């Protein structure tokens, strides 16, 4: 296992990138701690697979270095980096048995058969695939094939990092959950560094200790699931994580006060910086219906089970609220209250208020 | 990378050499050919081509070939389409046996059929017509077309058919306006292979024709009889037979590699 550092990483798929728009990755500096469970979250095309392939060595970055435990591996090919990667679609060697599939990475590295047997047996037990060890891999169901793909990464006890590139895409929903908890379990048992790439926030938040959120080739926030939810550093994170996402409302600064639709709104703490485009951010979970406050009209009420989502209009701006009980009708005139310590100001997209004491 | 691309380059060079020689000879005079070796035509002449384009028995051979090949391609693809659809969508009594029997016709040596074909087509009065050759070539082209088309159709989800019926399409309208466009690559590939095998086959084409529908390739044998070998003329006629194939292949260049890959075994 190793600590992985990325410094000044940039990558472009074009031979002669002209400007920032030509870069799939724009300047990434990141440290992955040894033994951590990370998720790399972002919408399709944000550069997360590119970043993953750079770490595994399938791609050589245009600029920047990759260090494993301080050792520069930027120019090393994948097989010398001691990494494991699981792909979106299960990759298995059709003509081999499950046993031979699992043994493949070890045999390629010249380990003796007693060791191979020991590791394969161990991993097969961990993955619950012992009964099928002598079956031809081609005949397995998709979820078992994906397990074997994972297993090929796990058999090696010297891997620096295990990477998963949207591994559950082709798996049936009820098996997704099973495989995900299996992964979590494996992480706890093996203490391996794992990086899990996904565009699905549920997968990211349930799997990872630390989530790295990416957008358009940039890392916008790194944090625990709770941090991402409660204090998004960027409006993109606020919007992308949570269901429904954070309310992002156009606001103006007028002599130290924050004004939204003609009303002053109190924010969590002191405002930093100046100028730029300012927006208010408040999660629907922290918007409540009140006697006084922002006047709003209810546009739609949807009951989603444990709670209800109320869509309202404040002036011309839609604001969503999540409440336990929806006792209002469509078209009703209501007042909204924002919880002050959960209301933040964003300047050009980035958080621009200090946390409440 | 450099070293690797040497193999295809060498292979293509090997393929082009005899073709180059044929083309180069077609521009030489008979005298130059017989007088000895020359890598390039010394006295460049278009005389051989002039002979072909002015003598009706030559250029009609060319036209005859194109007529029966086109006829065969159209017939083969048109009949194969519904059959391939049936094989890819339905189970019916004897379907597997029928499919296999069709394929066995692809295995029949043409030499076996030459004489009976002559008698068959003579007896129905089709001897020495374009239609006779076009129909005879169906023997090996229809199984091939059914095979290729079935492969392509198998790749189209059945839901497409069902959606169309739900939307109120009649079968013929669905087949022509929705289904055909989705498998047009397959139709192209099937048509290409039909064209190819009909164009290159000679044994049956020669057996079934005498004068009226004689293919260009058969015309070439006459260079041997009159005044010894007219190699220049032979080469020119040969060169001309390469051109239609080259044109057709250019149009399907992006599909040919996929052609058989989607067929079933």
């Amino acid at each position, binding site marked *: 296992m190793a600590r992985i550092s990325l410094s000044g990483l940039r990558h472009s798929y074009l031979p002669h990138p002209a400007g920032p728009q030509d870069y799939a990755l724009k300047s990434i500096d990141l440290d992955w701690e040894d033994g951590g469970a990370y998720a790399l979250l972002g919408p399709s095309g944000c550069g997360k697979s590119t970043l993953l392939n750079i770490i595994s060595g*399938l791609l050589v970055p245009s600029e920047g270095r990759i260090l494993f435990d301080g050792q520069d591996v930027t120019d090393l090919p994948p097989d010398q980096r001691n990494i494991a990667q699981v*792909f979106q679609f299960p*990759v298995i060697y059709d003509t081999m048995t499950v046993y031979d599939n699992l043994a*493949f*990475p070890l045999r*390629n*590295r010249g380990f003796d058969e007693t060791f191979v047997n020991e590791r394969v047996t161990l991993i097969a037990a961990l993955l619950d695939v012992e009964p099928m060890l002598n079956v031809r891999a081609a005949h397995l169901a998709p979820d078992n094939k994906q397990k074997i*793909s994972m297993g090929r*990464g796990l058999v090696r006890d010297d891997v620096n990092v295990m990477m998963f590139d949207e591994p559950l895409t082709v798996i049936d929903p009820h098996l997704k959950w099973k495989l995900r908890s299996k992964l979590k379990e494996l992480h706890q048992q093996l203490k391996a560094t794992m990086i899990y790439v996904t565009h699905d926030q549920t997968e990211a938040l349930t799997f990872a200790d630390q989530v790295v959120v990416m957008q358009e080739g940039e890392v916008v926030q790194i944090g625990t699931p709770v941090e991402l939810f409660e204090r998004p550093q960027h409006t993109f994170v606020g919007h992308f994580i949570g269901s429904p996402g954070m309310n992002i409302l156009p606001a103006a600064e007028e002599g130290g006060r924050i004004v939204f639709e003609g009303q002053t709104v109190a924010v969590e703490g002191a405002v930093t910086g100046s100028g730029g485009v300012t927006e208010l951010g408040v999660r629907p979970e922290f918007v409540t219906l009140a006697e006084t406050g922002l006047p709003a009209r209810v546009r739609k009420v949807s009951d989603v089970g444990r709670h209800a989502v109320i869509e309202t209009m404040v002036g011309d701006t839609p604001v969503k609220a999540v409440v336990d009980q929806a006792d209002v009708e469509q078209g009703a005139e209501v007042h909204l209250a924002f919880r002050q310590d959960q209301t933040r100001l964003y300047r050009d997209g980035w958080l621009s208020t200090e946390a409440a004491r | 990378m450099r070293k690797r*691309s040497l*193999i295809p380059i060498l*292979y*293509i060079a*090997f*393929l082009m050499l005899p*073709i180059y*020689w*044929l083309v180069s*000879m077609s521009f030489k005079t008979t005298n130059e050919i017989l007088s*000895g*070796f020359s*890598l390039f035509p010394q006295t460049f002449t278009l005389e051989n081509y002039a002979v072909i384009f002015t003598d009706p028995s030559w250029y009609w051979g060319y036209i005859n070939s194109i007529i029966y090949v086109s006829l065969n391609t159209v017939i083969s693809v048109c*009949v194969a389409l*519904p*059959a391939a*659809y*049936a094989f890819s*969508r*339905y*189970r*019916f009594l004897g379907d597997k046996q*029928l499919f296999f029997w069709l394929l066995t016709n692809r*295995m*029949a*040596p*043409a*030499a*076996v059929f030459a*004489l009976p*074909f002559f008698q*068959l087509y003579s007896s129905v009065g089709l001897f020495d017509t374009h239609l006779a050759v076009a129909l005879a070539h169906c023997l090996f082209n*229809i*199984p091939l077309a059914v095979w290729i088309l079935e492969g392509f159709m198998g790749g189209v989800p059945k839901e497409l058919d069902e959606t169309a019926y739900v939307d109120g399409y009649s079968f013929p309208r669905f087949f022509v306006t929705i289904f055909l466009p989705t498998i047009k690559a397959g139709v192209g590939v099937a048509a290409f292979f039909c064209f*190819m095998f009909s*164009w*290159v*086959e*000679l044994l049956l084409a020669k057996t079934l024709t005498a004068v009226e529908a004689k293919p*260009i390739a058969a015309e070439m*044998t006459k260079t041997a009889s009159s005044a010894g070998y007219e190699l220049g003329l*032979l080469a020119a006629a*040969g060169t001309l*037979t*390469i051109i*239609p*194939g*080259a044109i057709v*292949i250019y149009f399907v260049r992006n599909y040919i*590699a996929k052609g058989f*890959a989607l067929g079933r075994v």
Partner: protein
Amino acid sequence: MKTENQKAWFFVLPVLLLVAFNALVPIMTVVNYSVQETFGNNVFFWQGLDWFEQILRSDRFHAALGRQFLFTFLILIIEVPLGIIIALSMPKKGFWVPVCLVLMALPMLIPWNVVGAMWNIFTLPKIGLLGYFMNDVLGVNYDMTQDPLAAWITIIVMDVWHWTSLVVLLAYAGLVSIPDAYYQAAKIDGASPWKVFRYIQLPKMKTVLTIAILLRFMDSFNIYTEPFVLTGGGPGNSTTLLSIDLVKIALGQFDLGPAAAMSLIYFAITLLVSWLFYTLMTKDDAQ
């Protein structure tokens, strides 16, 4: 799942009629000849299975069959590996791919007798490019009208020239259908190029290679026009393959009975070997 529908027969009917017209009537004619003797004037005598017995016992048939198997064996053993090697070394994408494919497919689109004629003038001593090169530059005595070995080498090289591209096209189609992830996984698993070939590329090419081998078997086993135009079966009988011999008997000597019996035996062998190939190569999938 396919639905049961007997009306599907109507879709198949045109194909059935056309192919049956072309296949059944001639085959019946052949069967008819094969059990009769004629001295012309449409007078036939019942002969039973005598012709079959005669053909199966004749040294001439054995020799032609032996040459045919040798030819097909050599063709397969050269063209299949060569085709795979060329397909493996082709670029995966880019401008050159369609150019390569078009150039490679060109020989397959030349009428078969033109192929024979082309190779004839290519190999003529003194005036053919290859003939001149062999005799006058390398000093090797090369004349396929005299030397059986030279004739054999020439028809083999001609067939390699003519049909290897088919194997290349099919193998290439199989190769480009392999997702990149397989190669990436193999890199990470530390697989050598040989193992990548053995465990990824070869299994993924299996279907198309089965088709390639079947097609190459059928077509090389039935080959007639190209070697006939090139060598006429000579020198002597050295390159008289089955089809050539068949046509000699049927049209040259007009021995219809023996020719018909030979046709049927020939067809039966082609079917049998094709079926064997097919069963052997798809055996694993059935399990």
